């Protein structure tokens, strides 16, 4: 169970107070009517879903009710940072050394042995 730092409450809180809300930084097209069916479908349904560093949105549902962003490794589940809505991450897949990520993946994904 995660221990999540809410950037608005300024504290770590139990996962039970939060709801995950999917990929972060999804932007609704400014002019939906100008989108093709394909572009609109992409916006609605197609997701990054990386194995590794992921930016996702959570809401502190039982708490301050604020949405915010989390950078988390989807294999080790380590939370690398949390930041407010509208802010940009300081840690990204690119900024993380390949080696570190690789290590975490092979360490914690059980399929190999």
């Amino acid at each position: 169970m995660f221990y999540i730092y809410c950037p608005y409450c300024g504290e770590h809180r139990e996962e039970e107070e939060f709801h995950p809300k999917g990929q972060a930084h999804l932007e609704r097209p400014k002019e939906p009517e100008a989108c093709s069916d394909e572009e609109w479908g992409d916006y609605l349904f197609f997701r990054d879903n990386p194995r590794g560093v992921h930016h996702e949105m959570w809401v502190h549902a039982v708490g301050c009710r604020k949405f915010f962003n989390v950078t988390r490794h989807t294999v080790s589940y380590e939370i690398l940072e949390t930041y407010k809505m509208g802010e940009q991450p300081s840690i990204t897949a690119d900024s993380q050394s390949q080696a570190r990520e690789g290590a975490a993946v092979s360490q914690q994904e059980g399929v190999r042995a």
Partner: protein
Amino acid sequence: MSNAATFDTRTETAIPVESPLAYSYRRSGAPQAGGPSRLQLRERAMLGHLILRGGAIVLDEAVRDVLGLNLPGQPQTLVQDASGERSIQWLSPDEWLVIVPGGEEFPLETKLREQLGSAHFAISDVSGGQTLIELSGEAARELLMKTVVYDVHPSHFPVGKGVTTVFAKATTILRRPSEDRWELVIRRSFADYCYRWLLDAGAEFGINVQQ
């Protein structure tokens, strides 16, 4: 005056009222410990509850002028007046809970609105929708550990703190107004569930309900 409708939901006339726990007292009773009790529960019903929303900068002065309290700008803080009757609690960066003696909420809202003028803010009266349950006694903290996921250790939860957190399968606002007292703000529709939970979890401490 902001362009919102205000409405005093209370009346001066003597009309029977029922607190959110009224049904629960009838259904589950109000247990009294036979011997010495390590835990007391008391509902403080019919208080005035207002949700205040807006920027801290917008609200701060008005709150000080009208309520005589500093708007708590720091997360998780609870500020009370000297009598402990009036309090204001941080709920989120743009949301506060004000609790005042029953009947004061409407004049308070009116005054705040006057003071705030055309600024962007919101005040919602939720007095009918929630109630306050007070826990005291040496076992209060243990009872809370069975109930809420938040860390209630004194080093982490000093007097003057308040949080919104998970209460069993419901939610609560939990505050610590004084050394030996904890307050739970519970939603009306969940009140019976919360009450039954507290009685059940508190039984081993000889819970004592003061009505």
